């Protein structure tokens, strides 16, 4: 899952980005509203986390611009003001959620997961595909009660595939959602990671869940081909 995070406080920005990455998210971060809009225009995000008080364009203005383009991407506001009118203003402007500073990182992660889930119409943290199970909170993956160890990137790839199970995802889509702008690898990075994932998910079992659609991309499904 790829997140855009805009926060003008340097230290806080760095800490939250670290925490997101450790929690298995891909993060692009910036320090002002205008950069946030530029990032949002250039990539596809699953969740946007905005600080309200930012130099240049503030959180409200960024949100207004995003919503004016009729985009449904979930937005979470971070605000240092807890006055009710501030929260109401944010929610009315089209924010999906808000957190008041100081906040707990754990809670921020949980809320971001909720927003991701809801954008894929999932009610629980547990994603299933046949006998394959993925817990987005604990990052644990099992197939037929057998735990499977995945690296961060492999996990992110599997999570994205499972959120979209039954749907073909292009290499571009996958790359956009799993790798941030810091990554400048070759174009076959997706194929490489799909390979790693197959080694762990499919190879030890008799049914193959990760399918390749030649010329388009990949999908995961438990239906027999």
């Amino acid at each position: 899952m790829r997140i855009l995070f805009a926060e003008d406080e340097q230290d806080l920005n760095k800490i939250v980005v670290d925490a997101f990455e450790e929690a298995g998210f891909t993060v692009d971060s910036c320090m002002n509203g205008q950069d946030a809009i530029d990032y949002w225009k250039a990539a596809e995000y699953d969740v946007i986390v905005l600080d309200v008080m930012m130099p240049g364009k503030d959180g409200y203005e960024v949100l207004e611009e995003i919503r004016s383009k009729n985009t449904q991407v979930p937005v979470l506001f971070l605000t240092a003001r807890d006055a009710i009118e501030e929260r109401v203003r944010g929610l009315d402007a089209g924010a999906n959620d808000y957190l008041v500073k100081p906040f707990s990182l754990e809670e921020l992660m949980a809320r971001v997961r909720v927003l991701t889930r809801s954008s894929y119409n999932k009610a629980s943290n547990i994603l299933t595909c046949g006998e394959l199970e993925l817990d987005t909170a604990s990052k644990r993956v099992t197939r037929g009660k057998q735990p499977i160890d995945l690296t961060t990137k492999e996990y992110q790839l599997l999570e994205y595939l499972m959120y979209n199970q039954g749907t073909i995802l292009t290499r571009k889509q996958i790359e956009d959602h799993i790798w941030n702008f810091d990554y400048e690898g070759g174009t076959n990075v997706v194929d490489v990671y799909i390979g790693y994932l197959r080694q762990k998910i499919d190879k030890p079992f008799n049914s193959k869940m990760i399918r390749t659609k030649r010329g388009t991309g990949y999908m995961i499904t438990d239906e027999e081909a």
Partner: protein
Amino acid sequence: MKKLSIRTRIFLLFSSAMILMMIIMFILVRIISASVMKQTLSEYLISAVDSNALMLVYMTPEEVEQAKVYDADDLYLEYGDGYLQVDDDFLDILNDVESALYDAEGNLIYGNNPLSRELAGEAFTDSRIYEKKISGKEYIVYDRKFIEENLEGLWIRGTVPLSQEEIQVFRISTSMAAFLPLLIMIVILVSAFAARSILKPIRHMEETAEQIAGGEDLNRRIELPQNKDELYGLATTYNDMLDRLEASFARERQFTSDASHELRTPLAVIMAQIEHVSSKDRSVEEYKSAFDTVDRQSRRMKRLVEDMLNLSRIAQGEKRYPVTELDLSVLVQNVCQDMGLFNYKGITLDSNVTEGIMLRGNADLLERMLVNLIDNAYKYGRDNGNITVTLFINDDGKKALIVTDNGIGIDEKSKDKIFDRFYREDSSRSGASGYGLGLSLVREIVQFHGGHISVESVVNVGSKFIIEF
């Protein structure tokens, strides 16, 4: 008197003034009418005496014989070589005026009334009115001397009792006194009405004020009376006060909200940092970096709290910050020396201080002021830039302290706002974790010392803060 309501006081003052006035009027009427009466009586007396004087004619014996044929009723008295004819119209008692005829020696010639005999022999005063007490009663007396031929030496004396006049005055007074209770009643009613109607707009104002005081709503204002009288002034003053109160409350609320916002941000960083670093085992470098962050952010909070405290203390005036005569030059040099060691972005700090400039002030505050200004210059200065601090006596004879930098500058529209609490220049936030109380405190300190601060700045060229004491 103090326990009474204003309305009662107005009523009492008004009605007692009116009653007092009525009593004075009453007394005046008595005095004036008495004097008018006396005047009238005197005139009455004179005219009675004068008309009697016309009734007296001297006649030779031949004339008497002739006259007797026509005026048999008249009295003929022997006088000198002839006779005095006293017409029967000579009235020795006319109403209250009693008149009598005397010769030069004061012997009664004509006039039959009790007083005439009693007054016989009294010395005459010519044509003069005077008062005389005769057997316990006051009288007005008028003597008239005859100067006509053959009548020389004769006198007519008229008297009228003064009691007559008193009776008249008494009559007027009593008829007035009969109306007095009625008049007092009217006075009381009018006073009560006046007190009520004068205080009506005040009561109205009081009600509005009560509503404002009772509720949380400071938006309400007192309705202004239609005519611009004293109450209009009072209502306007009151409304102005409410405006200021409301604005001051709003500022206070804004300050509290801003302060909590400013404190929440470093607090959020500290809490997030600690949560993040303790979520699993970290390397020594990670711990070190976390400690650095916590250190930096807690210092930021400390400064913010200190500035807030200073701002609120400075409002309490000299009690908190005693002022002494101090050497400003030494103070500025010391601060520059300390701050010059602060190696940040390669910026250099120069100072150009005229020695021996004294100022009455508080050393802690003045230090804080200069530190904040230099700190600001560092924060918004360019890499390898320069800061200059100058202290001298300017052309106006004032002590001028100037802090100049060649940093990013301040744009025109922000110039007025930089001294506002928690104002932060947007474009200048690139990396510098600014807090919005520094310049506000600087201004408060300058004002505390009776000085003035101004700023000259050009974007991307630099800023110049000028303080004059």
